[in-house]
């Protein structure tokens, strides 16, 4: 009897342990908090990547929670402090505070062979990489080919207008009652700054431009002042919409391609994520004559081929995660040229994952050909000012260079003085 009871107990214990162990093995859950709740094509890409990963790793489930960026950042700040943050979360390289405070997992063990070196560099802090760079973008000057033709302006083969030709284009557009360039800062801290930082980058070249952003070159440098004065000439010629200060990003897109229509639109190359949607969802009209040219040459520029390339939406891992192996496996599952091409083809914006544009086919192949042409011979500076500058300098840059200077409410001298005092 005793033996029977002992046997039954042993069997029951084994069954219990098996029952307990089996679901645990099948239920390893990796949590992911991510931006892009409202950006369907990026969300589709990530959900597809999760599905592919889960198929190959049956014991692991990725539980994604979708947010809008502001809400996500606020939630993360609290969750990280409280030790309740997810295993993986969305971040951008300018969020150095995560690295400074030891919240991020060192991703040195990741398979970096299929990641662009500049993207890895963008996420490196004290020699170690911390982010998986999904999204990258350049600043592009989009234009309406039909309107430019009607103005009698020919875009040269180099795709870059000279300073005089650009000013002439602006004046011709104004004379016709058209807005030369759509741009608005109603709800974003960066669109107005595109104008200034692309011009300053060309004027100074990458090294001095880097010094300027980091406070090692004074804003009173004559080259900086000259560039701002040149930009002021363009602004005074009526380059931007009269509603520039209140025009929101989404409205600026529509302003360019639909109503009332502008000749040009200076925007990140993620223009496509809004404009290539159906027209009833805010996309550009069917058969819209979209052209892409280079930012105009800047008078006396050190490097007219210089342009900004910045890493944006990325995934990072929580330093306290107990599922490091699964997290790295998930990142590695996206670190392939095939995944990079899938991102390009579906999201229509550059990525930090290595990809091959020549393999892109279908209706958007022509767009990538245009993008490749404007980026030919480009010398990149990696990172937007908002990613390089911190604290007060960043705040002043946002208020002055993004808003007040292009709006014409502050002069060159005042702008220089305020920026100089911000470091």
């Amino acid at each position, binding site marked *: 009897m005793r033996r029977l009871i002992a046997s039954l107990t042993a069997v029951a214990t084994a069954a219990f342990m098996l029952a307990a162990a089996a679901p645990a093995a099948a239920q390893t859950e990796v949590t992911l908090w991510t931006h892009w709740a409202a950006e369907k094509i990026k969300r589709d890409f990530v959900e597809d990547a999760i599905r592919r990963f889960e198929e190959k790793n049956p014991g692991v489930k990725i539980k994604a929670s979708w947010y809008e960026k502001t809400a996500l950042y606020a939630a993360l700040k609290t969750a990280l402090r409280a030790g309740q943050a997810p295993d993986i979360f969305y971040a951008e390289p300018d969020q150095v*505070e995560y690295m400074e405070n030891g919240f991020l997992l060192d991703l040195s063990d990741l398979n970096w062979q299929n990641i662009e070196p500049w993207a890895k560099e963008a996420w490196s802090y004290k020699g170690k990489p911390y982010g998986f760079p999904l999204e990258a973008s350049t600043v592009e000057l989009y234009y309406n080919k039909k309107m430019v033709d009607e103005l009698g302006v020919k875009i040269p083969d180099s795709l870059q207008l000279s300073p005089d030709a650009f000013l002439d284009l602006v004046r011709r557009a104004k004379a016709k009652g058209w807005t030369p360039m759509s741009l608005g800062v109603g709800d974003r801290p960066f669109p107005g700054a595109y104008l200034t930082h692309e011009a300053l980058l060309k004027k100074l070249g990458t090294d001095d431009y880097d010094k300027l952003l980091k406070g090692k070159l004074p804003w009173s440098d004559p080259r900086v002042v000259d560039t701002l004065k040149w930009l002021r000439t363009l602004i005074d010629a009526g380059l931007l919409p*009269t509603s520039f*200060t*209140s025009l929101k990003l989404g409205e600026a897109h529509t302003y360019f391609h639909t109503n009332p229509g502008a000749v040009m639109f200076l925007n990140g190359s993620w223009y496509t994520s809004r404009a290539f949607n159906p027209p009833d969802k805010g996309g550009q009209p069917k058969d819209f004559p979209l052209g892409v040219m280079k930012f105009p040459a800047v008078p006396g520029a050190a490097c007219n081929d210089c342009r900004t390339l910045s890493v944006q939406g990325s995934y990072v891992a929580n330093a306290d995660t107990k599922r490091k192996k699964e997290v790295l496996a998930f990142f590695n599952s996206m670190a392939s040229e095939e995944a990079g091409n899938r991102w390009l083809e579906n999201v229509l914006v550059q990525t930090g994952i290595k990809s091959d544009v020549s393999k892109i086919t279908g209706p958007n192949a022509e767009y990538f050909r245009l993008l490749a042409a404007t980026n030919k011979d480009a010398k990149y500076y990696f990172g937007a000012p908002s990613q390089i500058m*911190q604290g007060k300098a*960043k705040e002043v840059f946002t*208020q002055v260079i993004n*808003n007040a200077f292009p709006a014409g*409410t502050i002069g060159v001298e005042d702008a220089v003085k305020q920026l100089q005092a911000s470091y």
Partner: protein
Amino acid sequence: MTSTATLREAPPVAPVGAPGQAGATGAVRGPAPPPDDGVPRPYGTILAFLLPALTLYAAFTAYPFFRTLWNSFHKVLPRRSEFVGLENYATLAGDELFWRAVRNTLIWASTSPLFEVTIALLLALALYAKVPGARFFRVAWFTPVLMSYVVVGILFVWIYNYDWGPVNAALRWLGLGELARAWLGNPNTALPALIAVTTWMWTGFNMVVLLAALHSLPKEVIEAAELDNCGWGQKLVFVILPLVRPTLLNLVVLSFIGKMKIFDLVWITTKGGPLWSTETVSTYVYKRAFEWSTFDLGYPSTIATVWFVIVLAAVLTLTYAFRLREKLEY
């Protein structure tokens, strides 16, 4: 006058339970026994009743207050904090953006109550005088206060839009097109434009409170004034306004405090721009705590502490000044 004077001349009400006086409880249970009568007090019951409220107060008011004060003397980073003494306060003293935010907030808090309460009084008098359509206007004028700042903010971003906003459209229609501008995009007009929004939003609330005060005025006083051949203007200046003065002052103080804390409307419409012309202390604290790429809560706590002291001092000053005036009057 009579009723106010009567109230003022009434003997002070003794505290509940004071020896020899029947308070609200004493009226039912008889005079409260002296403290050393040897009767055991139900301290356990008292504590049981007080504990929930005290716990909530301690957790959500007292602790955050003292923690903020403590933080203000520290650099508060995740997993560690470092005592920095008065360093945060010294930095704040030289923080140009903070003082700009203080100036904007004080301008807002000192002008807005005047507009709100003055217009509200005029509207309340119109309703009190039963203008045609009074019932409709009472609802219409009160409606804005029912909306959230988020909705109002979005609404006014459209209303102030340069190209197609109704304000500029009206100006152009009136032949005043040269006055059209980006109201929220111009550093000179952004703050007044937002003050106009809060005035529009809160006037209805003030109006309803004042209307209630007008309706509760003692009829015999009004009738006595009418018997003395007082016209509307005289009744207003010599009878109605003195009688509703306490309500007016309370509304001014309430509005003042509300504007000293304003955040949501600014965040939705301008985020403190352009050129910090609409930056308020609340938006600046938020930026420093959550948008300046730092986890440090010490400096934002310093701003919050200093601002608390400023608001408290302002409210006490206002209250003191109003009391002084009352003393002078009587």
